[in-house]
């Protein structure tokens, strides 16, 4: 494990210990399952955003994609009567298409990722509101598509399904990022795209595919979140999710300059954020301080990391 991973894992454990001591309810099965479900849900799209960050880019559209795809999913299943398998495939494909659009705009036209995905953030939410006519969507009783719903509310041996899905996604992402040729190319481009190009790496394709991945994982999360909340208000559904993702990635060791990061780090980062939210709930801290608590803890972690020395990853001189 890298130094960063160990540091935030320790921070996570310390945090859990503090919460458990302050509120024994933390360790109750119900609560842990809840936290695990949230970690799984948020973790999936955080991994996608993390991969994009490693290329040196950013994806701000994740929350709005959740809103748009959530609305569409509801309409597909409830209003248009699509078969669940078809609806699921369509939603995932759409996520990929949106990601591809981002990727192409960024690599072919040379637009900045911040601008492209910011516009995505605005466009997709606007589209969601328009398509839903600004009404809240849901899944009613959920008849006819129970198995899709199980993705969000089911569990495997007590472990919530979203967490299991995240572990699977994480495993595949780990292989992709740290063991595959694509992953090596991704890190090379993130560190130094020019030098990577001179070495024959197809830098544009590598970056574009990262955005596609982010789109697909956002879509997968959208499905889970839609069923989890069972109430999709297009104006607010998925608000700020991208910030959670970016925070998780950065805590987990991804540098916003690109070229650095690990899948495990992103997952631990996502877990840290959800435990913090849980802490706010359990300790009866006013919900309005939710973000403030998260911000303070993340800042503390960053300062501690900097003060105790940040050596180069390898061969420190």
């Amino acid at each position, binding site marked *: 494990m890298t130094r960063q991973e160990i540091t935030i894992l320790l921070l996570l454990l310390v945090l859990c210990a503090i919460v458990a001591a302050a509120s024994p309810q933390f360790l109750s099965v119900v609560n842990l399952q809840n936290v695990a479900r949230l970690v799984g849900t948020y973790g999936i799209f955080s991994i996608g955003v993390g991969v994009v960050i490693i290329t040196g880019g950013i994806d701000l559209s994740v929350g709005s994609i959740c809103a748009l795809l959530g609305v569409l999913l509801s309409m597909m299943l409830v209003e248009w009567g699509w078969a669940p398998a078809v609806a699921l495939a369509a939603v995932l494909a759409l996520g990929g298409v949106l990601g591809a659009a981002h990727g192409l705009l960024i690599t072919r036209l040379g637009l900045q990722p911040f601008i492209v995905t910011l516009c995505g953030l605005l466009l997709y939410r606007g589209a969601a509101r328009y398509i839903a006519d600004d009404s809240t969507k849901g899944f009613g009783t959920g008849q006819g598509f129970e198995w899709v719903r199980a993705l969000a509310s089911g569990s495997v041996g007590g472990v919530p399904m979203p967490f299991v899905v995240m572990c699977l996604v994480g495993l595949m992402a780990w292989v992709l990022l740290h063991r595959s040729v694509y992953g090596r190319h991704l890190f090379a481009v993130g*560190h130094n795209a020019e030098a990577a*190009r001179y*070495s024959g790496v197809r830098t544009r394709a590598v970056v574009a595919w990262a955005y596609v991945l982010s789109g697909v994982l956002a879509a997968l999360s959208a499905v889970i979140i839609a069923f989890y909340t069972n109430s999709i208000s297009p104006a607010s559904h998925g608000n700020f999710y991208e910030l959670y993702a970016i925070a998780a990635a950065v805590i987990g060791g991804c540098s916003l300059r690109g070229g650095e990061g690990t899948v495990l780090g992103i997952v631990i980062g996502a877990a840290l954020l959800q435990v913090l939210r849980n802490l706010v709930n359990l300790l009866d801290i006013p919900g309005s301080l939710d973000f403030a608590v998260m911000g303070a803890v993340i800042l503390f972690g960053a300062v501690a990391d900097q003060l105790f020395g940040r050596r180069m990853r390898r061969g420190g001189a």
Partner: protein
Amino acid sequence: MTTGPLLKMAEISKRFPGVVALDRVDLDVAAGEIVGLVGENGAGKSTLMKVLSGVHRADSGAIAIGGVPALLHGPADAARLGIAIIHQELELVGTLDAAANVFLGREPHRDGLLRLLDRRRMEADTERQLARIGAPIPPRTIVRRLSTAQQQFVAIARALSMNARLLVLDEPTASLGSGEAERLHAVLRDLRAHGTAIVYISHRLGEIEALADRAAVLRDGRNAGVLPRGEITRDRLVQLMVGRAIEQAPQRPRAPAPVPGAVARMQLEGVRTGRYPAAEVSVTVNAGEVLGVAGLIGAGRSELAEAICGVAARRAGRVLLDGEPVGIHSARDAIRAGICLVPEDRRHRGVIGAMTVRENITLPALAAYSRLGVVRRTAEARAAEEIARMLTVRAPSIEAAVATLSGGNQQKVALGKWLARRPRVIVFDEPTQGVDVGAKAEIHRLVRRLADDGAAVVMISSDMEEIVAESDRVAVMHEGRITGILDRAQCTPQSIMRLAVA
């Protein structure tokens, strides 16, 4: 009036975790004197200069300027004392213009509460300093758009505008052509006549011979000797740098003459580059030969290399490999066809500094060590070890980050990444720029070996000695065109220069 040296560094020692960088080093420089400072990479030259400029604090020893002990806590102190350093990696802000860079940190301002920038004075002064060194660069030019040589002149103008008493230049001619280097030397001689003390760090021993009043040699962090003007010769310097005489490498045996009628390994027909769209280049390179490419800075050599190797767009013309035209529209195409480039800007294009030796070496050929897209780590590590060993890359291990290696070893990594692919054509752009004497000889041996193993080698170089010694033929370029191709026998610095200024 003090008669002692302007700069006196005495018994300077500096240690970093695990390594002694300087061990009781002395250096004296008098006003109106040029002292050459030489030493292999890692000998301590840069560290000594960083101590002088205030970037590092010496562990022990004393520095005196004009007889007065100097306490340097940071670069600002050094500047205040009239010490100006021009680093090899020019520290200019690319997005600002020349005038802004010349006055960076010392911007003149108009009177008044707002302290508005006095742009007029900045530009007038900048123009004056640049004219003084014969570099007609408009002061409003954005530095990023200037060539490396021009950026160097801006850096020197900056030092001049600070009225430095002591000027330190670190590898100043590394990216200058011989004409520009001459101009620089004239400026330095002029400054010397006006009483400036100059420290001139360079691997180009010929320049030290020509320019220096004295030459100080460092070896392994210690003084290895000081030669007075009359005794400065290349051989003596090398002897002191290395501690033993380097056997003169035997003259490269001539490459076997191409069989008449045989198809050349690479033919360029009417190739035009973006920089000189009106100029056409046609030349052939045979397997087993080293074609040197000489010319002044700006002759279009790098642009030609990039066009052949797919990195830059080729405006027109054909490239034929073994008689067959190849379509090259990207670096990847060229590499797949067997044409590889070791680029000029090693730090930013040749290697990925943050990645390890292993990762850099295997980057272009990862597919060979992977199955179903997943990298097989043991095979990869083994291949990287082998290549690193073959090239004698000096690093703690193949897991060391390339940025921590010396210039020469970085260059070996930049070259090593192509070896696994057995390139048919390999283009070197300034292969030994900023590389110390020992590594230089090793790289020349590697270039020879690549040619002997059957590749066609193109070697772009501004180092006249290197071109003459290592090439079988030399193509000389001027403003995008090849003005002449010299055979080995006709190859002398003079004949090359004559064609280069055409």
